[in-house]
């Protein structure tokens, strides 16, 4: 055996080297692994601090955000208050309306959804245009009405196809219905979708399908009828579906409004009148409007579902202006119906005494102008009473000349002519009771000739049939009754139903009695309206006829022998009649204007008589003072 120490030492050396190398490698590994571990531990620490920051430091903020996610406050519309007539009959009510709504936010593709929808329920092009406009205008989470008044069958089809119609839901709303259709259209008004300018003050108006009053009582009492929106807090999931209701605050339901009009009477009156005729019937004692009839009118139900362009064109182009309430917006010269007011003004101005005689030769000359009386032969000597009864023009030419226009106007204003009557019908015109100042404001001088013509109710007058009825009621009662339509709100009567609620006009009773006697005689004492006496059982009517020229009658025509019946219809004078009844205890006051009716005594007075008979039959012994209970 050879001793080979190198061998062994070599082997040992190699082993040692290997072990040393191994140790070295292990050391490097340990350091590097430790570094890696440290990095990973640091990463965990970072995650921990991140969680702490999110959950503790910003926890409250995120909790709020989560709550906002979860809870969605939704408005719901309370039922709109109804409008009842004086007997409690519903003249504007609500009926159920199933409608399809689309929330753009929830629809994946609005266009595709609508396409699918129109395969199930056909949509016309104009409907599609409206829907697209509505979607553009409203925010993406606000539901837009796609189709209203769905039938059961349509509803079922929509529900069955619901999976293919993301964003579409069917809900039950209410819609306005006007059972009296066109008969009360001008009084009750109508509702329509709010314009963009309406939205903003009331969150309620953002709701789909909501309607606001656009005319008449609907508009005047819109806030009362509309009520206040209720809110419901619901828990919603990520796609906005309601999971459960958390809290509900009932809104304030719209209150019923009872108006003074008698729907049946109104209908009966409208049955008697023809196109272009307006009749306003007031409760003379308190100014309640019992009927306000004019023809033609429109069906307010049409507004509810949207007026087509063709319908709108037809309405606005018609010469007969169906959309305009002629009782409050039709402007007429009063003709001879103004003569009581002129007489009272003359008495107050002390330009004459009741017994003073003015001689009527059939014309009145002022300077080199001749003003004609309707009686070409002249009435002879006239006092105030006989001048009213015979409707002598010369007497009133003279009175007007004596006192001037401004004093007539002042008296007329006291009788409600040319002033704001504050009736609950928005857009009502106050009309014009001309004065010197008014004419000057137009840049024209006022001549005495103007004054003279205005003494018989011709000239620049622009008065509404309503104001003539108010004048009559004030003549009958001596009180400053205001015309009004509201009897009760939410079952509580409003002020103004008693005569004592209205102040006296401050006109001497003797003067009033004089003109009342004269008006009595117009009908019952051989005056211009003798043919229109009331049947005895209803008492006696007092009134005054009027005929107002629409065109000036030239001297040439007058000399040729002027016959109004030969004129084309639209050139014929308007026929007017104002009356109250019964004479001794006035209940009713009315005005009748028959456009191109030619003669007040011939066309207007008989109609007034028929209306009064109708009123007596329906409202006897007196217009009911009962306030209808609001029943739902």
């Amino acid at each position: 055996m050879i001793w080979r120490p190198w061998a062994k030492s070599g082997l040992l050396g190699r082993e040692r080297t290997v072990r040393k190398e191994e140790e070295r490698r292990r050391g490097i590994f340990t350091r590097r692994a430790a570094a890696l571990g440290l990095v990973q531990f640091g990463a965990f620490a970072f995650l921990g601090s991140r969680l702490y920051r999110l959950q503790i430091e910003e926890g409250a903020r995120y909790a709020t955000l989560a709550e906002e996610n979860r809870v969605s406050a939704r408005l719901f519309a309370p039922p709109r208050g109804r409008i009842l007539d004086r007997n409690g009959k519903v003249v504007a009510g609500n009926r159920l309306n199933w409608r399809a709504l689309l929330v753009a936010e929830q629809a994946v593709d609005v266009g595709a959804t609508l396409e699918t929808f129109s395969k199930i329920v056909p949509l016309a092009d104009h409907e599609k245009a409206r829907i697209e406009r509505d979607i553009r205008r409203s925010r993406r989470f606000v539901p837009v009405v796609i189709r209203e008044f769905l039938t059961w069958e349509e509803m079922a089809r929509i529900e069955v196809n619901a999976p293919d119609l993301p964003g579409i839901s069917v809900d039950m709303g209410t819609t306005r219905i006007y059972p009296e259709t066109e008969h009360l259209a001008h009084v009750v008004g109508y509702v329509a979708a709010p314009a963009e300018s309406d939205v903003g003050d009331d969150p309620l108006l953002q709701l789909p399908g909501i309607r606001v009053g656009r005319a008449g009582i609907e508009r005047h009492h819109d806030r009362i009828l509309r009520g206040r929106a209720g809110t419901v807090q619901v828990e919603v999931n990520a796609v906005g579906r309601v999971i459960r209701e958390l809290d509900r605050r009932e809104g304030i339901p719209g209150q019923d409004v009872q108006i003074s009009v008698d729907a049946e009477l109104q209908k009966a009156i409208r049955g008697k009148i023809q196109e272009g005729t307006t009749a306003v019937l007031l409760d003379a004692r308190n100014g309640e409007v019992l009927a306000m009839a004019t023809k033609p009118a429109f069906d307010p139900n049409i507004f509810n579902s949207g007026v087509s362009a063709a319908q709108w064109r037809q309405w606005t182009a018609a010469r007969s202006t169906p959309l305009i309430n002629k009782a409050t917006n039709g402007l007429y010269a009063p003709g001879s119906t103004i003569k009581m007011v002129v007489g009272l003004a003359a008495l107050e101005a002390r330009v004459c005494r009741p017994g003073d005689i003015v001689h009527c030769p059939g014309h009145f000359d002022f300077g080199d102008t001749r003003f004609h009386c309707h009686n070409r032969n002249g009435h002879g000597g006239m006092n105030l009473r006989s001048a009213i009864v015979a409707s002598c023009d010369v007497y009133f030419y003279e009175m007007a000349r004596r006192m001037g226009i401004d004093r007539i106007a002042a008296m007329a204003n006291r009788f409600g002519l040319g002033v704001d009557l504050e009736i609950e019908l928005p857009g009502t015109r106050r009309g014009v009771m001309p004065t010197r100042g008014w004419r000057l404001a137009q840049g024209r001088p006022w001549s005495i000739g103007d004054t003279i013509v205005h003494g018989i109710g011709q000239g620049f007058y622009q008065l509404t049939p309503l104001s003539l009825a108010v004048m009559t009621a004030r003549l009958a009662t001596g009180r400053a009754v205001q015309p009004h339509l509201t009897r009760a709100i939410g079952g509580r009567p409003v002020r103004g139903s008693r005569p004592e609620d209205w102040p006296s006009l401050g006109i001497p009773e003797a003067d009033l009695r004089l003109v009342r006697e004269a008006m009595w005689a117009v009908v019952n004492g051989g005056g211009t309206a003798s043919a229109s006496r009331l049947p005895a059982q209803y008492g006696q009517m007092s009134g005054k006829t009027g005929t107002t020229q629409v065109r000036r009658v030239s001297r040439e025509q007058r000399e040729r022998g002027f016959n109004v019946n030969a004129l084309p219809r639209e050139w014929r004078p308007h026929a007017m009649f104002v009356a109250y009844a019964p004479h001794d205890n006035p209940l009713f006051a009315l005005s009748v204007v028959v456009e191109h009716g030619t003669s007040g005594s011939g066309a207007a007075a008989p109609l007034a008589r028929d209306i009064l008979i109708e009123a007596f039959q329906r409202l006897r012994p007196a217009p009911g003072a009962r306030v209808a209970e609001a029943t739902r």
Partner: protein
Amino acid sequence: MIFERRLLARDRGAGVLEKLWQIPWSFVILLCGVAAIGYVALLSAGGGNPDTYAQKHAIRFGFGLVLMLCLALVDIRIIARFAWLGYLGALVLLVLVLLHGNVGKGAQRWIDIGPVQLQPSELMKIMLVLALASWFHRASWERMGNPLFLIPPAIAVLVPVLLILRQPNLGTALITGMIGAAVFWAAGMRWWKFAAAAGLAALAAPIAYDRLHDYQRARITTFLDPESDPLGAGYNIIQSKIALGSGGLWGKGFLQGTQGHLNFLPEKQTDFIFTMIAEEFGLVGAMTTLALLMLTVAFCFFVAFRCRHQFGRLLAIGLGTNYFLYVFVNVAMVTGSIPVGGVPLPLISHGGSAMLTVMLGFGLLLSAYVHRDAEMGPMRD
């Protein structure tokens, strides 16, 4: 070689019972704890109904547990020997998924193998760690300094990374690259080479960004400013943060999470499961979960330090980093710290592929621990 075989033969004689005894049961209990958290969270995600997600989760975990314990008994040297085979198999699957894979969410990621759907990229992460560990386990420090020696494993990393990018799945590709880098680092790659490679990758990033798909870019831009598109791509991040934040300290309670149960939270049973936990159990629940997950990662490091062979060490580090990256990317994602990227929270999220691969990895880890003292052959220069 003879020396090696003899040892192998001797070790084979070690009884199964002895090996079972060697299994760190505390770690198994830890995994059960994590899976239990997942069960509770999925129970909540299913609205309290175990049939929706939770039951399947439990079954999958049980299956994974058996797989893990079986693997733990397999000799680490056998595993090391077949490491490259496994890698090549995973590579084939990756190519197959590109050619025939099912398209899910706009990317080819899944492949049907019998009844189960497999995500080869998940499997690849494990196999890559195995392959790298087997490549490096006998390399001396000197050898690690040889650049030629580093080229084959670098290619072994880059090929699957590029394949995964092609799917396209940016998140997984990045994670795979990072796992590879971790093994390179732990194996002793010179730090300046490491830094140079990292710098090169950083330089390549803008070019890569250019080639990204639109949805991937959207993820990055919405991450930078989630409020820019609150109803679009940023929605998930915002809702997740709201859910997390509103959980507060103690949470809203089991089944009481409004964000999750009202569906504000997207994919609450998969990628956003952690948010669900944080919302219902608050910071306490979230921190507990995070702590258990951290312990799991820590155990991998523990195994790495206990192994007497480099193969086991590198394997443990690689697998630990894999699990760490799952956890970190997922939690950072749901807390809005990094861009959203479809990474599940393994053992907790619903889904079989990640669970199976993670349990596979833990099986390998346990094998390394059980055979921590095995002779793996000498070091080579």
